C-alpha cells in the first residue's frame, strides 16, 4: 500500500508517523520529522480553499485538508471563495499527475 496505488483506486490517504504521530506531507513511508516509519490512513474528504484561480472555464485551487496539508486540484462544481469548504468528488492519477476533482459545499 502506498499513496499512489491508493490514489489510483480513488482513495485519498495520508501518512501518520507511528512514533511522533505527525503527518508527513508530501506522503511518504518515513516521517520527515523523526525519520521513523509512517502508517497510512484514509484522510478527510473535506478541505478548505486556501487560494484559487481559473483557466478558461475551470477553477483550480490550493486545498488544505485537516488544517494541515495542501494539494492543488480542480473545483468542478460551485463557485469557489476563500476559506470555503470543498468535498473531494473524485481522485486518481491522470497522465502521471495527481488529479483531484472537488465541489464547493454551500
Amino acid at each position, binding site marked *: 500500500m502506498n499513496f499512489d496505488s491508493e490514489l489510483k483506486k480513488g482513495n485519498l490517504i495520508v501518512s501518520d508517523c507511528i512514533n511522533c504521530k505527525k503527518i508527513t*506531507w508530501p506522503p511518504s513511508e518515513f516521517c520527515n520529522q523523526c525519520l521513523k516509519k509512517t502508517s497510512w490512513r484514509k484522510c478527510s474528504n473535506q478541505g478548505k480553499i486556501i487560494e484559487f*484561480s481559473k*483557466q478558461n472555464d475551470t477553477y*483550480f485551487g490550493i486545498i488544505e485538508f485537516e488544517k494541515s496539508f495542501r494539494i492543488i486540484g480542480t473545483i468542478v462544481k460551485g463557485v469557489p471563495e476563500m476559506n470555503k469548504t470543498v468535498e473531494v468528488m473524485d481522485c486518481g492519477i491522470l497522465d502521471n*499527475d495527481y*488529479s483531484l476533482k472537488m465541489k464547493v459545499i454551500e
Partner: protein
Amino acid sequence: MTRVAIAGFGITKFSKEDIKIESILMNATRDLFSNTPNLTQKDIDGVLVSSNSNSKYLSAILSEIVGIQPSIAHSVESLCNSGTNSIVSAYSYISSGLADVVLVSGAERYDSPGQVLEWDKLRGEFKHPIFWASLFSKSYKRKYKIKDEGLALVSVKNHKQAANNPNALSQREFSIEDVLTSKKLTEDLRLLDCSRPCTGGASILLASEKCCKDFTDSPIWISGVGQKTTSASFTKNLAFDNMDSTKKAAAKAYEMSNHTSKDIDVIELHDAFSVCEPMALESLGIADQGKGIDMVKEAYQTENLKINPRGGLIGSGHPLGATGIAQTIEIAQQLQFDAGKRQVDNPKVGLVHNMSAAATSSTVLVLES
C-alpha cells in the same frame, strides 16, 4: 577569511537559438577572457557550471574546451537560482582558501528541462509555473487591492528598460494595454506578465582580495550572502502574497554586509512574473508591505532605473542557469559606472535577488564597490 571580488565577466545575447549547451558556456567564457586581458587559463583553479541541462560533466567539458585544468570542477543545479547558488559556492571556495580564482559559468537552452518541477506532485495537474504565478497574483491583488493594470506596469517598465540592454531577448516595448490584451493564460495572468525561457549564457570570475587586482582595477566586492530554502513543494509556502524564503535570505545578507535595505541603490530582482517584482521588493524590505507597485510606478514615472535596470527576467529573458549570473553582472557593471544607457545615478551598494520554484528557495547577494 579573504574578501571575495568580482574580477571579470562575459555574457552572450539571450535568444531563442538552437545552440548546444557546451557552446553557450564556451561563448560566455570567451567573452569573459576577451574582457579580462590579463587573465590566462593557468590563473583559474576552480570552474563551476550552473545549468539545468540534462547534459553531464559540463564543468570538466567547459574546462577542456577553453584550456583550463582546474583543481575544483563541478556543476550546480537548483532550478532558477542555480546561478547565484554557484556564485555562493565559488565564494565559499575562495573565502575558505581552497581556491584563489574561480570561473563560474551559467548556461541554458530555450527548451530547458528545468522549467517544470516534476517532483512536486502536490501541484496536481497544475505543474507549469503559470499556475503558481496565477495563485500568487490572485493572492497579492486581493490582499493589497491591486488591479491587473498595476501589475502590468512591471512588464511595461522592464521591457522598456530591456530596450537599452543589447543582450536582452527582445528590445520591443509594450504599453499597459498591450499587456492587458496579450494572450490570457489564466484569470490572473497574461502572456506579457511572464518572463520567457530562452537560450543564453553568462560567466563571471571571482577572485580573492590578493589575486583580484591582477585582473581588474575596479573590483566589486561580494559583501553579503544569504540563502534560504523553505521547502521544495509550492503548496508549503506560508503565504502566497509574500516570499518567506526571500525575507530570510535577505536578513542574512544584510547582516553579513552590515547594510540595511535603505542602503540599496540598485537591485536586480527575480521578476519571473510581474507579481514577483512588488512581492520581492516588499520581502527584501525595500518597499513597505503592499507598496511595491507604488515604488514600481514612481520609478517608471521618474525614469529611475534602480529596479531591474537590465530589464529583469521579463525584459531580458530567463535562461535559468544563466539568470543569477547575468543579474550579478548587471549589478557589478552598475557599481563600476559602466552600464551605459542603463546606468543608475551614483550607486554604491547593489543587491541581487534570485529565487526558484515559486519562492521555495531564495538567494540574496549584496555587492559594493
